[in-house]
């Protein structure tokens, strides 16, 4: 028997970015706005929301759907009920990651930001090239400050989750 419940929607609604989930009345504007949904039926924002609203927590958090949003905000722009869909998907990803469901590329982002204070490392070769083209030397981020900030946020817990995985 399939159990339907509003618990998950309530949980999402409490999170940063997830506040507007219950505005949704399933008109599908998001899906027809979505460039990804136009090329594949693996992603459908309307379905993602209805699954969340029905309480299919596991399906949502362990499925691939939440990772297929390309963050173009077209759905959010056009939603007649002002559901902040892209933000909502970030909120869902936040929950998934905090529970250990972390795609590889995201673990890379996490460690890059934590270790470098930036997402992309500048290669020595590039530094040389920059000099050749007369670009100023790159200023370095304050990694300690970034780490101090991250420790105060839920990012800190994600780091623990990732350590546990290793």
């Amino acid at each position, binding site marked *: 028997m399939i159990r339907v419940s509003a618990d998950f929607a309530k949980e999402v609604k409490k999170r940063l970015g997830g506040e507007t989930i219950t505005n949704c009345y399933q008109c599908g504007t998001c899906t027809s706005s979505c460039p990804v949904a136009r090329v594949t039926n693996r992603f459908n924002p309307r379905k993602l929301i209805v699954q969340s609203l029905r309480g299919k927590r596991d399906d949502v958090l362990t499925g691939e759907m939440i990772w297929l949003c*390309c963050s173009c905000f077209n759905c959010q722009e056009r939603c007649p009920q002002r559901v902040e869909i892209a933000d909502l998907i970030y909120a869902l990803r*936040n929950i998934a990651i905090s529970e250990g469901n972390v795609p590889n590329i995201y673990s890379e982002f996490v460690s890059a930001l934590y270790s470098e204070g930036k997402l992309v490392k500048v290669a020595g070769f590039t530094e040389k090239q920059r000099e050749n083209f007369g670009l100023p030397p790159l200023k370095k981020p*304050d990694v300690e400050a970034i780490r101090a900030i991250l420790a105060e*946020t839920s990012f800190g817990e994600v780091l623990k989750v990732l350590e546990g995985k290793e």
Partner: protein
Amino acid sequence: MKSYALFLGCTIPARQLNYEISARKALKALGIDLVDLDGMSCCAPPPIESVAVDASLAVSAYNICLAEEAGLDLLTICSGCFQSLARTNELLKRNSQLRKRVNQILSKIGKEFKGSIEVKHYLKVLHDEVGVEEVRRNVTKQLKNIKAAPFYGCHLLRPSELLKFDDPEKPRILDDLIEALGAKSIDYLDKLKCCGGLLRGYDDDLALELARDKVMKASKAGADCIVTVCPFCFINLDLGQIQIARKYNENYSLPIVHYPELLCLAMGVEAKELSPRSHRVKIDKLLEKMV
């Protein structure tokens, strides 16, 4: 002329020297002074928001604090950085509860978001502050033969309520700036649709499929190049074409150029000064057409 704190971000200085060089040159020539501040970090874009929204807001706000301390408005080149920073800036200005929450985090390192500066994308500065006419006046080499397909990307325009860059459904800024160079800005189907760049790394095939759609539609409309303003659009459409050729056996060879590159060329800068090797799709055909 006005000074801005330059926010370079992560990708451009590491991977797209063509963008950084041309942007610095063009903006300087048009009288905009760029200041490189110490300590600027990552803008905390969607990949970080996906991990922890609160962390993204806080890191993004941290960068804004640095500019606030310097008393300068922030200018971004990358659209991703623009979206992260401008959105955070606007959200925190509007929502006092959120601001409180973020400032609580920032207080640990002695910073406070005050809401005293603006975050701007250089296109807007060129359009509104320098002015289209001034850009036109600086053009020494009219790009008359070029049919350029402007590509705004997503993070310049949306969410429009917070970014307030241009009309999200009918933007004109990039079109106007292209036409200021004497080139023709062409319309093409799904002009405002996403290139799929952010799917790279999670699902490259899907990212490629979206890029292919984009390149195909621009080509079909007769474009000589696609003009981008975002490093991710650039990678997905430029490098993407090499991969498309491999995967679909389709060869578009459609040059992808960042707007400042076009601008520099129109102002008479030599192509070789602009790191032409940063392009995977050769731009020679485009350069030839300019003469």
